[in-house]
Each structure stands twice: as structure tokens, then as C-alpha cells.
């Protein structure tokens, strides 16, 4: 399944999803499409004024351009998601996920997609981390079961 993760560039989330044979919808893939496009030369990301305009699909014109530009990259990932893992209060994240308002909007859109969503908080301790990893694995295992309701053959 295609699993959206938030933060969308999290090493831990993407790695765990991939280990279970799912496809993590990571931000870097979207960025890669942009930066390797030989048609555009707008360093660093090849984002031009077109992206904030495309972002109007997700947020109105009164919303700052940086949010709309980011949404033009996140939006397709959210729309492709068949399930999602959201980790709130992640203490890191600059650049793409450096804008608090964009992050709120992304998490909101993921929640209203009508897909299974696992909500977590960023772990601080050993126990919390282990709990989070087990939660993620249990969630991912549960998805497989739903995917294959007849129990597989």
C-alpha cells in the first residue's frame, strides 16, 4: 500500500514502512522530480511561481506563498495515500516542513482523506521509542490484513 507519513521526510517512518513491504510516500521523491527536471532552472528546488499557484487547490490566495508552494509538493502525496502515519510534535524539520501552518494543514488533509490513520507523538525516551516502533508495525500488519480480507491464498 502507499502510506503517507508525516513528517513526510522522516527517516524512521519511511524506513519502517519500507521494511513491511509498503511504499512510503516520501517528500524526497517529489523533490527529486523537481530538481532533476532539465527544463527548469530555478535553484535550489526548481520551484517557480507556478507552484504557489498550483497550491491554490489546497489553500486560498490569502494564504502566504510559502504555504501554497509547499502544498503543491505535499498535495499529490496526500491524494495518493491509502493509509497514513502521523507523528506529531516532531522536534525537527526545517525547509519543506519548517512551516508550522503548512504542517497543520497537511495533517488535517490526511485525517479527512477517509483512510486508516495512525496517530503518534514523537518519542523522547527508550520506552516511548520502542512503543512507537511496535505501534507502527502493528498498524502496518493490520493494513495487510485489511488489504487481503480473505486471509490470502
Amino acid at each position, binding site marked *: 500500500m502507499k502510506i503517507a507519513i508525516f513528517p513526510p521526510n522522516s527517516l524512521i517512518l519511511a524506513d519502517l514502512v519500507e521494511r513491511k513491504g509498503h511504499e512510503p510516500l516520501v517528500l524526497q521523491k517529489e523533490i527529486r522530480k523537481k530538481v532533476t527536471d532539465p527544463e527548469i*532552472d530555478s535553484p535550489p528546488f526548481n520551484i517557480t511561481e507556478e507552484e504557489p499557484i498550483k497550491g491554490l487547490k489546497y489553500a486560498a490566495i490569502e494564504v502566504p506563498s510559502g504555504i501554497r508552494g509547499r502544498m503543491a509538493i505535499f498535495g499529490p502525496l496526500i491524494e495518493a495515500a491509502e493509509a497514513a502515519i502521523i507523528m506529531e510534535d516532531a522536534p525537527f524539520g526545517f525547509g519543506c516542513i*519548517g512551516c508550522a501552518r503548512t504542517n497543520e494543514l497537511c495533517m488535517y488533509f490526511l485525517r479527512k482523506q477517509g483512510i486508516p490513520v495512525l496517530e503518534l507523538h514523537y518519542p523522547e525516551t527508550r520506552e516511548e521509542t520502542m512503543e512507537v516502533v511496535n505501534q507502527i508495525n502493528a498498524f502496518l500488519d493490520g493494513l495487510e490484513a485489511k488489504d487481503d480480507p480473505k486471509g490470502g491464498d
Partner: protein
Amino acid sequence: MVKIAQISCGTDYSGVQKEIEKAAATFGAEIIIPEADLDYINEAYQKFGFNAASSSIRLMIARAMSLVEGKSDADAVFIATCFRCAEGALVRNEIRRFIQQNTNLPVVTYSFTERTKADELFIRMEALSTIVVRKSILAREKQEGLTLGIDSGSTTTKVALMENDRVIGTGWVPTTDVIACSQDAMDQAFADTGYKIDDVDGVGVTGYGRLTIGKHMNAQLIQEELSVNAKGAVYLAGHQKGEATVLDIGGMDNKVITVNDGIPDNFTMGGICAGASGRFLEITSRRLGVDISELGPLALKGNFKDALLNSYCIVFGIQDLVTSLAAGNSKENVAAAACYSVAEQVYEQQLQEIDVREPLIQVGGTSLIDGLVEAVSTVLGGIDVIVPEYSSHIGAVGSALLVSGLGDQMK
């Protein structure tokens, strides 16, 4: 090469990063990013004390701290955030203040949209670059020899001829053809002085048409109007030391420049709205059937409160004035209301973007409308507003002053 430290949030995602770098490169500057590692980011923003929700804004704070604490090296600072982002606007202004209070670096701030293009950034980058490269020229406090300054503005062309720290001739003509108008204005300035163009030691030019006229005249100084006007204003106001704010309500755009010891350290330029410009007052005087020079004294006799305008727009605002006149209001009240309306808009659109420091030196053609000067003071809570002699020739005087410094260097 001038190193401009960029401290920003959202430029990459608004598609304007390339424009920023292009503008910097045009004026021989390069953009650098101040160093800040993860531990430093946390330490810096906690020390600064602004608990921003967005981590990229915390990163801005850390980058500012890195400059202030000397962990990164730069010649100037460009601070930018997305237009309409409240958190961005708050932090942009606070780190600007922080850097200015703790370093000698010139700072420029800006809020952008996806439509921001390099041209809009040019004047800012040029001014930043100038302040760094020509600091010695900007430090000049006296005009020497015989020099000519030309300010080729969008609406009018102004010329000032200066000799031994005094203005000895001025010219003023509406701008049509840049070169022909400059010639006419020069003729006015030279009249009765006994001098001709061949006698001058140096020519300095500024304003929209500076490149055209500068090339034509083979000028020694071709300079954007921000640093020139700032210098001209503090020179004419006799306020070359300490802090001041220069306000120029122009025919097409408005400039607000903050100055410290004669060096501009921040400015806002704005105005795509005619209602916040001198043009509004020009149309008002036409409607009132008076010359623009009579509008000021007329306004001083009126009370703006008796003829309130409901619209700031040049179209609807003028309609309001007509309605007010039809309702029996006096020309004086209407003139006062028009002045107040322009002042209020300049306040709302621009003065709020900048840390206004007293005294405010009002310059440009509109500074001759004393009703407007009074309105500006009222809107700002009654602060001290200085209108120096030759205030409408500020750019020309500034150019003549600065080129005299350059002439010395060349000799």
C-alpha cells in the same frame, strides 16, 4: 565580492530564491547562509526568547544569532519572509532590530509573494551593496567645489548645483523625455550663476532615469535613490549624526528610510496605490479648482474630521470628496481630509513596516504641501516632522553632495 547573509523563511517554496540571487549578483554581491547546527539552533532561539511554532523561523533566529555572535561572516543582511505570514513578520522585524543593535551590518527586510521578481529586489540589493562598498562616500558630510546633482524621477526631474557646501541653483521640470528634461532643468539651475556645465567638478545622478541620463552625461556617480535621498535629507536637515527617518511621499511610489549617522539601514518602498501618493493630492486640487501650491495652506485652515473620506481609493476617494463638497462642506475641510487620507494610508501601508525613529524628515515635492506634513505628524501621534530647505530637491542635492566626495577621491 560583497557577502549578503540571507535570513529567510519560504523563499525556496515561493519560487523567489532564484530572483534574490539574481538581484544580488547584479550588484556584485553573493548570497551566503549563516552557519547554525542543531544544538545551536535550540540554544539560539531559547536565548532570543521568541518561541516560534515554525522551525524554519527558529532557524532564522539562529542564523541571526550566528551573525551577531560572530560565528558567521557577512557584509550585509537580507531578511525576508512570506507576505501575510504573521509569525514571519514578527520575527523578521525582531531579528532586524537585534542585528542592528548588535552589529554594524546594513540590513534590508522584505516580505515577498510568488510574484516577486528580481527587479523589485534590485534597488534593495543595490543599496545594500552600495552601503558596503561606498561607505566612505556615504560618510561625507560637506560638499566641496562645484558639483551638479540630477534626480531623474518618474514624475519630475530635479537638478541642484552646489558650490562650497551651498545650493546655488535649482531646476525642476515634469519628466517626459529623460534627457531633454534634464537639460531643461540644468538650464534653470545654471541660470544667473555664471557657470556652465563645463565648469563643474562632478556630476551625480539618481532616480528612475539615472542609467539613461548618467550614461548621457558621463556622470561620475550613478546611484539608486535610497542612499542618495537618505544622505540628502540628513544633510539638509542638519541631522547627520544619530537616528532619523526619511519620508518621501512621491508621485508614483513612497519611500521610508531609517538612517543612522547618515547611513541608511532599512527602508520600505511601496505604492502601487495612487490613493497613497502625491497624485491623489494633485487630483484633489484640480477638483477644488486650486493650484497644488495652494492646497497645503488651504488644508491647514480646515478640519479633516468634518469631511471624512470613506474610501482610500483614488477613484472612490475623489468621489467622496465631490459628494462632501456637494453636501456643503468647505474647500478647506475637504483639502484637510485629502491630506489626512494620504497620510493615513502611508502610515497603514508603509510606516508600520518600519521602526520609525524621530525626527522624521519629510522630503520630496509633497513635503511642500504643509497640510500633508501636519497630517503625517498627526497620524504619527504628533511626532516632530522636519521639512528642510530644498526638500523637493533632495535627490539632486544628495547626488551633488556625494559626487563631491567622489571627485576628491579621483583627484
